Structures are given as C-alpha cells and as structure tokens.
C-alpha cells in the first residue's frame, strides 16, 4: 500500500471520523467511504464552496492561497483540504 493509502486508512479509522472522500477538479467523487447519495451531495456542495473560498482568498491577496477549510456545525465538523487537482473531504465528530 502506498503511503497515501495508509494515511487515508488511518484517517478513516481515527476516533470520531464519520467519512472521507476524494473529489476531483470537476466535483466528481473518486473515492469515498460513504454511500452514493451522500457522497454526491457533499461533493457537489463542498466543491462549490471551496471554489468560492479560494477565490475570496485570492481576491484579498493574489499571492495567497487556500490551505484548508473547516466548517464546524452543531453536529459535526467538515474539513476540506484542496490539492492541485483534488479535494479531500473528511467529516468528523470531534466531541466524543
């Protein structure tokens, strides 16, 4: 197994993590641990949000770039880490 696979596996088995998914540049999920409908929903919505966030950061300072995005809600926390071509989304329940 490559290192990345191992890292993803570790993330998935970490305490409180509900699901992980990898989405490509067009918003199509490539790899997911959740069911199909949820995945498609998350992928589509978070993809748009990430693009918006990225453009916001860039507008403020063109030299700057988005490293990651964290959305904490009542129920859980969604963490999005954009990469060159992909988007890694992890949903965790932190308070357990």
């Amino acid at each position, binding site marked *: 197994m490559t290192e990345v696979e191992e890292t993803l596996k570790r993330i998935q088995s970490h305490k409180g993590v509900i699901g992980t998914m990898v989405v490509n540049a067009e918003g199509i999920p490539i790899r997911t641990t959740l069911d199909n409908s949820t995945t498609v929903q998350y992928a589509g919505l978070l993809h748009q949000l990430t693009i918006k966030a990225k453009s916001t950061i860039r507008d403020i300072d063109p030299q700057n770039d988005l*490293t990651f995005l964290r959305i904490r809600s009542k129920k859980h926390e969604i*963490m999005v880490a954009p990469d060159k071509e992909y988007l890694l989304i992890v949903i965790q329940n932190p308070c357990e």
Partner: protein
Amino acid sequence: MAPKPPHKQSVSMGRGARKRDDDSGTEVGEGTDEWTQSKATVRPPDQLDLTDAELKEEFTRILTANNPHAPQNIVRYSFKEGTYKPIGFVNQMAVHFSQVGNLIPKDSDEGRRQHYRDELAAGSLESVKAVLSDAEILEEDEEPKEVEMEAGSQTELPPAEVAETVIEEELMTPKQPKERKLTNQFNFSDRASQTLNHPVRDRECQMEPPPRTNFSATANQSDDITKVSQAAKIVERMVNQNTYDDVAQDFKYYEDAADEYRDQEGTLLPLWKFQNDKAKRLAVTALCWNPKYNDLFAVGHGSYDFMKQSRGMLLLYSLKNPSFPEYIFSSESGIMCLDIHVDHPYLVAVGHYDGNVAIYNLKKPQAQPSFRSSPKSGKHTDPVWQVKWQKDDMDHNLNFFSVSSDGRIVSWTLVKSELVHTDVIKLKVEGSTTDVPEGLQLHTVGCGTAFDFHKEIDYMFLVGTEEGKIYKCSKSYSSQFLDTYDAHNMAVDAVTWNPYHTKVFMSCSSDWTVKIWDHTIKTPMFIYDLNSAVGDVAWAPYSSTVFAAVTTDGKVHVFDLAINKYEAICNQPVVARKKTKITHVEFNPIYPIIIVGDDRGHITCLKLSPNLRKMPKEKKGQEVQKGPAVEIAKLDKLLNLVREVKIKT
C-alpha cells in the same frame, strides 16, 4: 481264476501251461476242442516232469481287486511331523481304456431341450405333410384322392420342392412363436424384490438474507490517488487536533494556577503520549529534539538487555500528529543513540548496538540509511553509546564523533559519500600496569559510555566510562587525558555541560547519584541521591540552574538550584505502569515541555508548571536582565557559596 478247460482226455496241457494261460487269457473254445480231438496228444519236450505227489499238490490262487501295477510304497512329506510318511491307501484303479463320449443323459436340461426340438421337428414334418395335403387339396381339387394318397407318400417330394420355399416360409412362421428363444447358454433367472417406495417430500429452510450494501465506484485511468498526499497529511493533523483538542489547548495555554499556593514545588502536566505498534517491545534508547522544527523529535528504539537483542527503529514524531510518526526507519540492530545536525536538520546520525554507525537522510524517502559504517570501515566492536555531530571540518565535510564500550572514540567524516573513520582516543584504564615486568605492558581498555563536547571550547570534551571515571580529553591529544575525575561507583550514564556556564557539568550514574562539577575542581559541587538508578539528566535550556533527572522507578525529578539546593522541587511518577523504567529525558528548546522515554517504547510529553520555570524576580526599579550573562551569574553565585563552604571546611 481261469476256468478249467473242459474235461477231455485228449487235452492234457499240464498245470504249468495252465498257469501260463492265466496270464495270457486266451481260451480254447469248445469248437477247438473238437478240432483237436482227432489228433494225438503231444508232449512238449520242455514240459516239467513232476511227480504224482507234486502233481496233486494244490496251489491256492486268490483273486483280488488289487492293481498289480499300482505302487505300494508311496510316501508323502508330513509337515506336522517333519518326515516322510507312507500313505496307507493307494489308488488301485487301473484304467484300461477311456474315450470321451457325447452322450447326454435324457433327464438333464440339455437332453430335454434336444428332445423337445426333435419332437418339434417331427411334429412339423407331420404338419408339413398335413399342410401339403391340404395345399394340394386346395390347389388341385380335381385330382383324385388316390393320387393325393400317393402324393402324400411319394410325390410329396417334387411338389414339396416346389412348395418347399413356400412351406418353409410357412414352417418358419408357425415355428417361431412356438419355439422358445434361448438368449444365452446359461439358464438364469432374475430375482428381484422391491420395497415399498416412500413418497418423496421436499424440505426446505431459508435464513434471513445477509444485509447487502451497494458499492459503486468509478475508476479513471487519469486518476491518481498519490497526488492527494499533501492534503491527506494536513487533514490527518486536523483530525488529530480535533481529537486531542484539549491536550493541544493545555499545551498552549494551561498554566497550573495551584503553583501559587504550592510553596516552591512544581508539577508536570502529562500531555501527549506517543507510541507505535512496531516499536512496542523496544525500549526508548535515545531522544532528540530537532533544532530547526521545534515540534519534531526523533526517538531511537532498541534494547538495553544484553540477552534480548533484536531489531531497532528510528521514529520521528511531530507534536501535531500524536497518532502516527512522520518518519519510520527500521534497522537490524538496536539503535542506542542518535543526534540531529544543527545546520542540516534532515541528517540524523545513529549508533547501533552492533557497533555500526549510520546517517539517515530525511529528505530522501528510502528506508535504508544513506551512509553506513561496516566492519571494513572501522566500526566499533561494542555498542555505540553516544554520537554527536561536530562542526564541518576544513573541507566542509560532515563530521561526527562516536563513543563505544570498546574504548575507542572515533571521528567519522563523510568524504565523498563514504564514511571515513579516525580514532581520536583510546581510553586506557590507568593504574593497571603496575607489577608487570618490563616489556609486557597490558593495556586494559576502558569502556566509554557517554560523552559531551564543550559548547565553546571546541576541542575539549568529557567522556564517562563504565568504571565510573570521567575523563576530560582534547581532540588533539590522542593518548593522554587532560584530567580525570573519580566520579561514580558504577558506570556513568550521562555527562552534560551546562548550556550557560562554561565551567559546570553534570553527571549521573546507576549508583543512584547525580553530581554537579566544576571542571577545575576534582570533587563535585553538588551531589544528589535519588534512591534509584538514574537513567538520564538534562539541563533546562531556559535556565542555568534547572535540570531534570529520570530514574528507573518511573519518576522525574526536577531541580532548581536557585530555589532549593538540596532537594528536588518536583518529584513526580510519570509512567502509567509500575516497573517501567524511564530511560531518557529531553527538554524542548522553545516550549516548556519535556519528553520522557521509557523501556516499553512509550514517549510521554509533559508540561512544566510555572514553578519549574521561574525566572529571577524583578526587583523594584531594576530592569530585568535576560540573557546568558544573567544565568551565568546566577550559577556562579551558587557555586561560590558552595566553594566558600568547602574552603572553610
């Protein structure tokens, strides 16, 4: 017995001739007697002349059924007795003539069959005659009966010939249904019995179907999961931060408020615990913070047990990810010591139990060390107890020192990607060459267990040995020591120079003591007895008077000489399980945390409470001076007190 020839006087053949006749068996019939009657008796010339008495003698002849040709002495071997034994009864039958005949008894199966067939044939012939006569009657009605009668007997042949084929055909057809078909030669019969057939019944059972989930995925040739590596690392840290959120908050912000009420004592707050499955059975043998990245530290795993030597591991952890190390390296021999280069924080020098030294390059992803010593290139013959990077030499080659129990202190230089070694010093045990005749000088080798280089005076360094002595050596002198200190009763486990004060160093040993020295004085300044073998000591980087010592009973002792010269200000058991020995301790250069490693392979990170980090109090009106000078002055003051006391006594 041969029948007596008919009594006729004419025949006088004599008894001897009669005897002969017995064997030959030819008899003279009546007719021949009559024929020989006319002739006169002739007496053969060779006839026996017997007297009357002899003539009248009667000879008894017995007729038995014995076969004269049958053997009378057949013997057969008897296995029971192991000898040849004569058979009592011998077969007396003599076969004179035998012929295989083809007569079949009338009552046997075959005989009956044949008989039946014959009957059939006879019956058919008669039926032929009857049919024929009928046919002729039918065909030739005009012919008179007389002719038919005749035809019945004589002329049946020609019309028979004509109608033979017809008749034969007719014969055939009535024959077949009458004749029994013989399928094979053997008369056999089938015998069968059938039991009652039970009606067949189906019996089924069905469990609940197991739960099924749909798995769907799309695979694309251009999709490569490895490009997400950077993002994955970031996310892993985020996830960990969420899980250990309270610990991270403590690390950053928590200051023990209770310290105000505790006179002088301080506490250690446990933060993170680091452990890895692969290094579970291995003890922590070395700890080192990375000089550049303050959250990264290296852990060396191996075994102190002489009997149970196995592999070693080098792990690098970051405080940002307590669940999994950033780098993992595995080695065949246990790692005993390690050091990270100050200028090149990606170079880690390690020393192994088997005497080898190696350099790992963290920038390169390979699992093997970049450079390794070998028996050819002068590795140590005993475990390497300490390695330390030095400044680059004149040719800008990387350079580090190692000390080992084989008594050699070796300088390794990385010349064009090869490790070249130079013996700097061979430790000799002094005083062991007395009472030895001239010419024979035994040099017993001392075993080095720890060393430390002076912070400012480059060439000077201290070596601790197994015998408990500490030698002050110089890199330039290879055979002589600058100074010797009779430090301990058992092996010296660690020696460290004070980070601020250039004259002060500290040593610890398995003889339960920690001693603080001034290198110009042969006797220690301070001695502390800790009730258990001391594994390691370390000076705090922020103060010249604070240091920590760890013991094998699982306790961490923190001392501040400025506050309390005689006792520890913190005395805390740190390990979860009893009987776990703490092997090493290191202060973080920036943050107020220490890491302790134990012999189970676990590393615990602890936060120092404020009391342990006390800076000199500000005097009203005076500016607080910070910096090394202050620290040195602080320690000097203390030492002077001690020295004065000593001089007085």
